[in-house]
């Protein structure tokens, strides 16, 4: 058996000098390259869809959750922290997350509910009885008892959540809102 180099016949050797950039081959090369690129692009469509799946689907589900009886909540004198359990999809898992929210009562006795997530960068805002306002521990954003922005870097007041009364229960629609924008915007 011969070495391949020895096997290069006259005609073959001539062509081999030109390589893929030779003029005679360039058109075919271009065609093959374009074809391969096209097939490659076609094949990468499912791969991209596969990777981008989290962008293509809504992740969190929102639902109405019971907070407590209207009767009990009507007697509050300052904002009270309540926890609700929110079922969330986490990829292939279903998880139950506890979310903190504040039930507040205004001068007319009307109840309102605020998310404890700071609209600045998402830290948990806490009620301070001695100051009679909400303080975010991260960047010192401060809010009044009815959630209005007092001072600090947050772009807007605390996010009020939708509520309704079902029977004697107060139920809340828990949602997440976009941070760092002046008006509240639902996400997820």
């Amino acid at each position: 058996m011969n070495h391949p180099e020895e096997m290069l016949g006259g005609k073959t050797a001539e062509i081999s000098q030109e390589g893929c950039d030779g003029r005679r081959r360039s058109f075919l090369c271009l065609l093959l390259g374009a074809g391969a690129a096209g097939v490659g692009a076609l094949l990468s469509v499912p791969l991209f869809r596969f990777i981008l799946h989290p962008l293509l689907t809504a992740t969190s589900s929102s639902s109405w959750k019971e907070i407590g009886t209207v009767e009990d909540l009507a007697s509050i004198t300052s904002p009270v922290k309540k926890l609700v359990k929110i079922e969330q999809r986490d990829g292939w898992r279903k998880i139950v997350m506890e979310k903190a929210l504040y039930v507040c009562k205004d001068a007319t006795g009307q109840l309102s509910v605020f998310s404890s997530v700071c609209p600045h960068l998402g830290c948990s805002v806490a009620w301070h009885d001695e100051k009679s306002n909400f303080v975010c521990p991260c960047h010192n954003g401060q809010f009044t008892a009815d959630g209005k922005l007092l001072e600090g870097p947050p772009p807007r007041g605390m996010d009020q959540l939708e509520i309704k009364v079902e029977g004697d229960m107060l139920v809340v629609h828990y949602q997440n809102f976009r941070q760092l924008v002046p008006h509240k915007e639902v996400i997820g």
Partner: protein
Amino acid sequence: MSDRRKRVGSILRAVLDEAIPGGASLAYVFGSGLLYLLLSQIITGMFLVLYYVPSADHAHTTVAYITKEVASGSFIRSIHAYGSSAIIIVLFLHVTQTFLYGSYKGRRKLLWLAGCALFALMLGMSFTGYLLPWDQKAYFATTVGTNILTYVPFVGNSLKTLLRGGTEMGTLTLSRFFVFHVFLIPACVFAFVAIHVFLFRKAGPAGPVQGAPEALKQSTEPFYPKQVLYDLAFAVLIIACLGLLAHYAPVELGPKANPVDTQYVPRPEWYYVPVFQWLKYWESGLAVLGILVIPAFVALLFVALPFLDRRPERRPWKRPVSVSIYGFVFIGLGAMGAISHRNDLRDPNLAPQLAKQRADVQAFMKKPFEPELAGPSLIAATVALTNPVAGKGKKVFDQEGCAECHGEDLTGTSAAPSLIGVGDKHDSAKLESILKQPTDAMTDGGMTPVELNDEDLKSLIAFLKALK
């Protein structure tokens, strides 16, 4: 920069101008087809790991998630699964071509050996990959597959325990198979593919089996463009076949592995069926001979081929002995596959069970994806915490052993359905009546009437009611 371009250019030229004695041929496309398939397996495999979790708890859920929910997930998984079958088919064609052309002879001995190593590695890849979805067929086929190791004298049991990561199949088995499938075997595959390609480049293409050296020299043709076109056409054929199959007949996933299922009849992947059939013929006394000695002998014969058949003769019709042995083994394997298939169809005990298993797979595929509840009994625990009567009911539920069939997390097993949402489906009176007197369908599934005092029954119903 220009130096580098020149270097790349010269490598490209060296590859494209590889001289093929006797000219390009469709018979030479299988090697590059295998390279293409390997690339496809690597890419789809890497993507699948984005969502897959190798643990007995989550593997099946994550594969179900990929198959039922993730965009293009079923397609990519199908390409990967069908790709493994395609590799076996093209590998067989590649080996047969090499064998018939006598291309293992002369200075191609090492090339043949590296190819044999790759053959074994590919069988290892498919064996380890088969378990990863952790469905019924994966679990039971691998149980049988790993049990074969017990036939190895003296160390058989230790080997099996080592491979499984324990005496029984479990989450450690999955971890081990995952490491083999994703790290160890691929690393060896890369090494041997590099060696195989390097040795091939060194030896050069073998060319046709006959023809005078002078004539061959005259008809020598470079790899580019004709052979490149043939190879590309073959790759496109593979892409088209896999793509159509994956799109129109996506690979299915069965129900999650249930080790206590005593009815399940495992069947290996189609290319292992002949070996599976072969094992049936060996009774305990001679089993070592049939299961270890004979296959090892055949494998050794195969590997040692270039050393046993040293004549330079490459024409298959002048090599009747080796060609007949090859043909005999191949026809034998095919026949055993056919016999196994026929038995499965005709056996009055097996056929209905196999049909039931297929129906189970289809039923599972039709169900929408059910996400896994994070943490054991998360919903149950939450219910128990918030409602004291239901909490007591949870204790009754645990004492009565309901979890054995309905699952620790109440999401059901293959023995009994999920109980999540049962509180929405039935009112308390209905729950009470079906607990006391299960329906026929429930009784068939193994549900027994619940006998409890009134208080316990009430709290159990409160617990079930709370499972929304």
